[in-house]
């Protein structure tokens, strides 16, 4: 009889262990390929690695060098300009379109997919389309000249000082529709009773939105910010396809800097240090958000 009891005991134990066993491959992959790799890259950022990884610790030299490089400063200040404009414009367009679409619009079912479809495209495709559209020789400027507006000039993509703004235009084109969808979902989730009460109290349309609706959209604002901010820091493909980082180095971002220093200039230690800075930037944005998300759900 003892063996039978053992057997039952074993089966309950097994039942307890199965969930953990099932979860373990993903956890193992994550620990190695995400967190292990992060630690490895952090370690490399303190070594004198050039073309291949080396394990000689040289202290914070790479970070000192990195912040002394004008190319890195260009990349960081470009990111600041790009991220600020990208997040602000996407949020403004997304919110405006969502509010307008929410006014019982005929043809909403037609318009929504038109606003959203760019998010299905690869940044390489978006870059190809906009590179051409913005090229003064054959794109918009050329077309305006053909239509008789001879003095029209739009050569930002060839202009060192303006090229970064073309990245903003293309990136906004790609993601603002998605932000619209997030705000629209938020608007549709608002209880109409609140609005009716406010209208009876004689609130004007403008103050209705400013005082009541927009504050209620706080969660949507937060999600939009987090998603856009992390996309901005990770931006790589679009720059490669649209400007290749040029003219000169005018549109380098940290992501393109890291790639070229690590893999084409053989400065792996410096490249690793730049990747660590990128990770820390994202962590600073994500940590408070994730923390509050996980706490709320308990």
């Amino acid at each position, binding site marked *: 009889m003892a063996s039978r009891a053992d057997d039952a005991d074993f089966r309950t134990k097994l*039942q307890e262990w*199965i*969930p953990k066993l*099932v979860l373990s*491959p*993903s956890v193992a*992959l*994550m620990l190695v*390929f*995400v967190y292990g*790799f*992060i630690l490895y*890259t952090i370690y490399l950022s303190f070594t004198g690695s050039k073309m291949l*990884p080396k394990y000689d610790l040289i202290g914070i030299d790479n970070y000192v060098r990195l912040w002394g490089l004008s190319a890195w400063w260009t990349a960081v200040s470009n990111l600041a300009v790009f991220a600020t404009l990208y997040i602000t414009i996407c949020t403004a367009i997304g919110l405006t*379109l969502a509010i*307008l679409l*929410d006014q019982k619009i005929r043809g909403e079912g037609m318009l929504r*997919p*038109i*606003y*959203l479809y*760019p998010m299905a*495209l*690869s*940044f*390489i*495709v*978006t870059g*190809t*389309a906009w*590179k*051409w*559209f913005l090229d003064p020789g*054959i794109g918009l400027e050329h077309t305006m000249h053909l*239509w008789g507006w001879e003095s029209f000039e739009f050569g930002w993509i060839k202009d060192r000082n303006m090229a970064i703004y073309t990245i903003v235009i293309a990136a906004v*084109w790609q993601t603002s*529709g998605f932000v619209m*969808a997030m705000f629209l*979902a*938020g608007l*549709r989730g608002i209880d*109409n009773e609140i*609005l009716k009460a406010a*209208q009876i109290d004689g609130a004007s*349309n403008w103050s*209705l939105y400013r005082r009541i609706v927009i504050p209620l959209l706080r969660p949507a604002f937060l*999600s939009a910010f987090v998603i856009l901010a992390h996309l901005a820091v990770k931006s790589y*493909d679009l720059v*490669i*396809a649209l400007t*290749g980082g040029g003219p000169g180095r005018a549109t380098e971002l940290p992501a393109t800097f*890291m*790639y070229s220093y690590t*893999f084409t200039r053989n400065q792996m230690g410096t490249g*690793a240090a730049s*990747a660590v800075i*990128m990770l820390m930037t994202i962590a600073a944005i994500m940590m408070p958000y994730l923390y509050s998300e*996980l706490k*709320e*759900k308990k």
Partner: protein
Amino acid sequence: MSGATQSTAVSTGRITRTLIYLVLLLFALFYLLPFFVMVVNSLKPLDEITGGNMMSLPQTWTIQPWLQAWSSAQIGVEPTGLRPYFLNSLLMVVPAVAISTGLGAINGYVLTKWRFRGDNIIFGLLLFSCFIPFQIVLIPMATILGKLGIAGSIPGLVLVHVVYGVGFTTLYYRNYYAAFPTELVRAAMIDGAGFFRIFWRILLPVSGPITVVSVIWQFTNVWNDFLFGASFGGQSQPMTVALNNLVSSSTGVKEYNVHFAGAILAALPTLLVYIVAGRYFVRGLMAGSVKG
């Protein structure tokens, strides 16, 4: 997002409404224009592009650029067209999506219905892994793929996409299963159903909507990825990398019409998925992530 939910519309006058429609239509134009220009110009002979107006319809319609982009355009050093790269992308995307979605579903199930000490920490770690800048893993990944002998191959790319996709799929399924009544799972347990039977018989049958979200998300991300493809593609480069090689090659005459045809070919699978199932995607995504 459907007709069932009410809008927050306010009453507005006729002039305001006209203005609203005008703004909405202008934005529709903004979103459509670049793609329209690509389609129109991919159907023109080259001399009509360099000499003519990008907005005008072709005078001579031709599908030659499409054929060229597909099967004979110069990609890198070989005149293969995009066809082999399209196949690479397909061979990569199908297993990567299937494996990461499967893992995500079972992870979500464990993390909501078989909770244990520390499960929240694991979930937090998974969640953060969704947002890391991939530059932080590029160097060790290159080394490891080489050691495993799958550098520059389709299995290597599949592994990479599974690893960095499973966080998102787990997030989707976890949020979805969290709303599923745990009492039903308890009842089944009391009836003697085991871990896998409960998953197959009770949770999977109701997982349709979130599976659509997970599959579309992963399909779009994996198909559109450029960074991993360019870093680890080697002999098996995906479509996005090939397209970039085609468009940015500096040798010979720039055949814009072929570039556009190629770009649309690269966009076609995700656009199709989006057109067929996009509405379910947005609906599921909003239910899962924003309201959480």
